[in-house]
């Protein structure tokens, strides 16, 4: 067998000999050379076939040929590379998120012996896990056979004082935390029992992330003071990176707090004694829990529950699971697209494959060639994916840290990770290419060369038609779903707050329990603030309101409501933000005017209501949900909160809907199981059940002014007023309402969720549209030879183009019809998953906010996009092919 370079020379020699012969016969040299070339046929194709039949030792030449072949199909190659890049960017992002959570290292030593300890909630017959009350914890701390150590902690929000108020989530821990968890430190030391005695200096062990980002990873941080609102901690240590999720910003001491028997609730972790079982520990702790409930004033809790500390640390949140599923869906769509591309390409190249086999190329050689082509395309896609990760990791870190609370310390994309991405893309692409090649090999290739070619062509057309139709159908369903995702995100981002935020400056006061122990305190505070505000030139009028209820999910308050004349009880005991159908807001008389909430019906509160008959105002959403079709004014409701007793409150007015009254009120967050616009009940601040609301966890209290002063001046004035009225608050959080809303969106993860969802939807759209473009283009390209025959037989160029393009158009049309049918069949399930099932008066339990119905736009948009892209992708290569010389077209082979 000649080497590839020898064969090339042999071909040149042959053409030269034929040229010599023709010249000798009287033909001009130019004409002789052209005829000799024509007589020999497609030189390139013969050379490629010769290389293809070579053993693998001609690897370099083979790669060159393959690269040339890839370059000759730019739309196909470009689309496959793009799809692979997108797929592997998405897969790597999802994989990293899983890695950062499910497979992250647990910081504690001998973590398998650690258990989270819970008491059970009697109100739900033991179905709900609950934190451990102080009195139960005190009993649990006694000698136990089954546990060697026990430690308690509590979440805290630390506010750093500076030019800008910064909040850090942190964890306050007792003196046995480090010993129980066998937690090591990177620098300094951990919190010891001696740090947990009354009178000890407050200390902090910084998380690795806060040490790096706030303290610039300086080793001399040990011993330095860390000034936070009201407390100055001494930094005594730095945690390792894998303990980031355990600590938030820091683990801090709260001297004496954990030793007192109080009604506080704690997170408790225990270490199992060697040889003891979870059942033995549960029995031990249950006995003690029961003893606490029989003590005077003891907390009524049932039993004890043990869960694995490691499992809890590594659990994926529902949102993360959903998004990973979305990425898996994208990857599936992309891989189907890529498979379709390779199938269409392999079908188009059947003749070439048949010739190669006839020339003696072994099946192994052809398989190697198919795999090599996939490998080359996959490598290119993988390299682009790695470049995409440079952008993606920023998104990923934000997503993981805010949504799945994973360990972000391991997210920076390493060289190993990049290599893994490229290798995976290359290998998967090669496998898909091989699969496509093998599938096409099932067609009898020899028929293509001998005799019954027409039948084979018909078979090819049949396969190609089926592939394009199925792909268009899938693309249509995916595109409509993606468009609806985008519409939902757009709706969430653009939802109005329901009032005018301009010039509205608000102070958020962390009012713990009640003010001065009674609701009168709140009234006095509001009145004092109002008087001082009025006395400040130009500041305007101040209003105050609170948000009662479910700030803390384990509040034991009964938040249900009964409408007079109806047996229906709305709400439930122990509502939390995700499940309660309404919120209660005590407000001052002027809140509606100052904040700008419009009155729709009836009247707003006045001075008479401060101590008069119990009254309430509801919003439009509440009126619609509870009094649909009837006038709510004059109707009476009973709020079953403890301190509201059996009082019936008369509804005196209906006001406009408000979506974000403060950062804790129902944010328009994606993936929340609550309606965007909640039903709200306003009650006069003077009639509020504030004494009850102070169950040890507090509630947010807001003071707002709509000022004509410059914003900074208004913020400064309001801060001064609040500091004077509440000197214990060193630096109250005062800012514009717009800043509060923006921060709420960030803290609530709404922005991240919207970003991730939009990205997923956009990638999905690119994948499906790209898929259609690539398949249509490759399908037309593989019909170049047929176009050449038509042109040679006298068909006009326009006619040849029309024939090929109209064939693709028919397939796209059939695919769209099939897609519409598929979408119609699956829309119910899709809607239920994404937006929840619609049940009157019940919040949908889906993952996205439904918003206005944009289905028609999504359907028409997807239809037009697929048609336009598909036809354009078919038209461009067919016009290109029609411009070629028919003889040249006939000599080419796909």
């Amino acid at each position: 067998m000649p080497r590839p370079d020898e064969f090339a020379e042999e071909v040149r020699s042959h053409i030269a000999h034929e040229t010599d012969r023709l010249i000798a016969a009287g033909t001009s040299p130019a004409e002789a050379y052209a005829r000799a070339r024509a007589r020999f046929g497609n030189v390139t194709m013969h050379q490629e076939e010769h290389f293809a039949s070579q053993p693998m030792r001609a690897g370099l030449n083979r790669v060159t040929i393959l690269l040339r072949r890839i370059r000759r199909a730019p739309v196909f190659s470009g689309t496959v590379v793009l799809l692979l890049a997108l797929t592997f960017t998405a897969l790597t992002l999802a994989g990293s998120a899983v890695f950062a959570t499910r497979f992250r290292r647990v910081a504690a030593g001998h973590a398998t012996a650690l258990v989270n300890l819970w008491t059970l909630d009697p109100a739900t017959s033991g179905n709900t896990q609950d934190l451990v009350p102080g009195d139960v914890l005190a009993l649990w701390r006694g000698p136990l056979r089954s546990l060697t150590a026990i430690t308690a902690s509590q979440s805290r929000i630390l506010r750093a004082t500076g030019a800008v108020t910064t909040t850090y989530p942190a964890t306050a821990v007792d003196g046995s935390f480090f010993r129980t968890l066998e937690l090591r430190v990177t620098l300094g030391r951990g919190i010891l029992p001696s740090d947990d005695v009354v009178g000890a200096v407050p200390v902090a062990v910084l998380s690795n992330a806060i040490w790096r980002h706030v303290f610039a990873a300086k080793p001399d941080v040990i011993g330095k003071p860390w000034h936070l609102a009201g407390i100055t901690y001494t930094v005594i240590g730095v945690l390792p990176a894998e303990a980031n999720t355990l600590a938030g910003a820091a683990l801090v001491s709260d001297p004496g707090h954990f030793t007192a028997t109080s009604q506080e609730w704690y997170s408790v972790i225990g270490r199992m004694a060697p040889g003891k079982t979870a059942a033995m520990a549960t029995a031990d702790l249950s006995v003690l829990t029961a003893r606490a409930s029989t003590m005077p004033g003891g907390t009524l809790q049932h039993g004890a529950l043990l869960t694995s500390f490691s499992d809890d640390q590594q659990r994926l949140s529902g949102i993360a699971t959903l998004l990973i599923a979305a990425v898996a869906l994208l990857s599936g769509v992309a891989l189907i697209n890529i498979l379709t591309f390779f199938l269409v390409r392999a079908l188009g190249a059947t003749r070439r494959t048949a010739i190669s086999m006839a020339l003696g190329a072994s099946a192994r050689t052809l398989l190697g060639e198919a795999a090599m082509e996939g490998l080359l395309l996959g490598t290119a896609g993988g390299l682009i994916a790695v470049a995409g990760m440079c952008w993606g990791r920023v998104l990923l870190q934000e997503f993981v840290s805010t949504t799945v609370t994973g360990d972000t310390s391991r997210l920076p994309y390493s060289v190993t990770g990049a290599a893994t991405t490229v290798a995976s893309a290359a290998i998967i692409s090669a496998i898909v290419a091989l699969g496509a090649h093998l599938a096409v090999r099932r067609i009898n290739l020899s028929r293509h060369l001998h005799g019954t070619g027409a039948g084979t062509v018909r078979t090819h057309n049949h396969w190609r038609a089926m592939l394009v139709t199925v792909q268009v159908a899938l693309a249509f369903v995916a595109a409509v779903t993606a468009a609806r995702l985008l519409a939902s995100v757009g709706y969430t981002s653009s939802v109005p707050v329901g009032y005018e935020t301009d010039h509205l400056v608000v102070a958020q006061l962390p009012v713990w329990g009640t003010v001065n122990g009674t609701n009168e305190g709140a009234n006095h505070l509001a009145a004092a603030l109002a008087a001082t505000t009025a006395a400040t030139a130009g500041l305007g009028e101040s209003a105050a309101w609170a948000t009662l209820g479910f700030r803390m999910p384990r509040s034991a308050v009964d938040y249900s409501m009964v409408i007079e004349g109806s047996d229906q009880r709305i709400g439930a005991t122990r509502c939390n933000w995700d499940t309660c159908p309404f919120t209660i807001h005590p407000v001052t008389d002027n809140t509606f005017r100052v904040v700008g909430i419009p009155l729709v019906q009836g009247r707003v509160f006045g001075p008479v209501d401060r101590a008069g008959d119990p009254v309430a105002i509801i919003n439009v959403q509440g009126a619609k949900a509870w009094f649909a079709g009837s006038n709510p004014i004059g109707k009476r409701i009973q709020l079953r909160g403890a301190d509201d007793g059996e009082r019936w409150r008369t509804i005196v007015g209906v006001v406009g809907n408000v979506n974000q009254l403060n950062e804790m009120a129902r944010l328009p967050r994606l993936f929340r199981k609550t309606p965007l616009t909640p039903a709200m009940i306003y009650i006069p601040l003077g009639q509020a059940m504030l004494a009850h609301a102070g169950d040890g966890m507090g509630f947010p209290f807001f003071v707002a002014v709509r000022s004509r002063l410059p914003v900074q001046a208004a913020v400064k004035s309001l801060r001064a007023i609040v500091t004077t009225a509440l000197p214990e608050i060193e630096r109250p959080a005062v800012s514009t309402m717009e800043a509060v809303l923006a921060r709420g969106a960030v803290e609530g993860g709404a922005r991240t969720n919207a970003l991730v969802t939009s990205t997923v939807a956009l990638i999905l759209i690119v994948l499906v549209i790209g898929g259609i473009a690539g398949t249509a283009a490759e399908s037309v390209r593989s019909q170049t030879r047929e176009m050449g025959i038509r042109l040679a037989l006298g068909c006009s160029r326009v006619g040849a183009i029309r024939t090929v393009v109209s064939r693709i158009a028919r397939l796209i049309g059939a695919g769209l019809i099939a897609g519409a049918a598929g979408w119609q069949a699956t829309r119910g399930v899709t809607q239920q998953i994404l937006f929840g099932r619609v049940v009157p008066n019940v919040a949908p339990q889906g993952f996205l906010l439904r918003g206005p119905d944009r289905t028609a736009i999504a359907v028409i948009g997807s239809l037009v996009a697929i048609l336009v892209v598909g036809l354009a992708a078919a038209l461009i290569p067919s016009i290109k092919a029609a411009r070629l010389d028919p003889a040249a077209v006939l000599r080419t082979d796909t």
Partner: protein
Amino acid sequence: MSTQEHGQPLLPGTLDLLVLRTLLFKPEHGHGIAMAIEQHSRETLLVDHGSLYPALQRLERLKLIRAEWGVSSNNRRARFYELTARGRRELHHQVSTWQRMVRSIGHVLGPEFTEE
């Protein structure tokens, strides 16, 4: 495209036989082999030049012929093919098979179609 304005395309499977026969008495390069087949068939059989080389490579792989570079009468470098001993045996075998086939077909067609 092996069909030309004059002459006939080769019957499938006959190219190997014709190549071996052409090389029986002297080595020849690819173009020479194609020309020889056309001339000896009085330009009745036309060889697709591009398809000749896969056949030559197949025969070379089967060790029925061998090749080496030389210089042609046109003073051009060319790859000359030569029959091997195994090739001679194969030629003898294929010629016998072909003659049997022609006789058999002739019997089927009958004397009225036999060209004397």
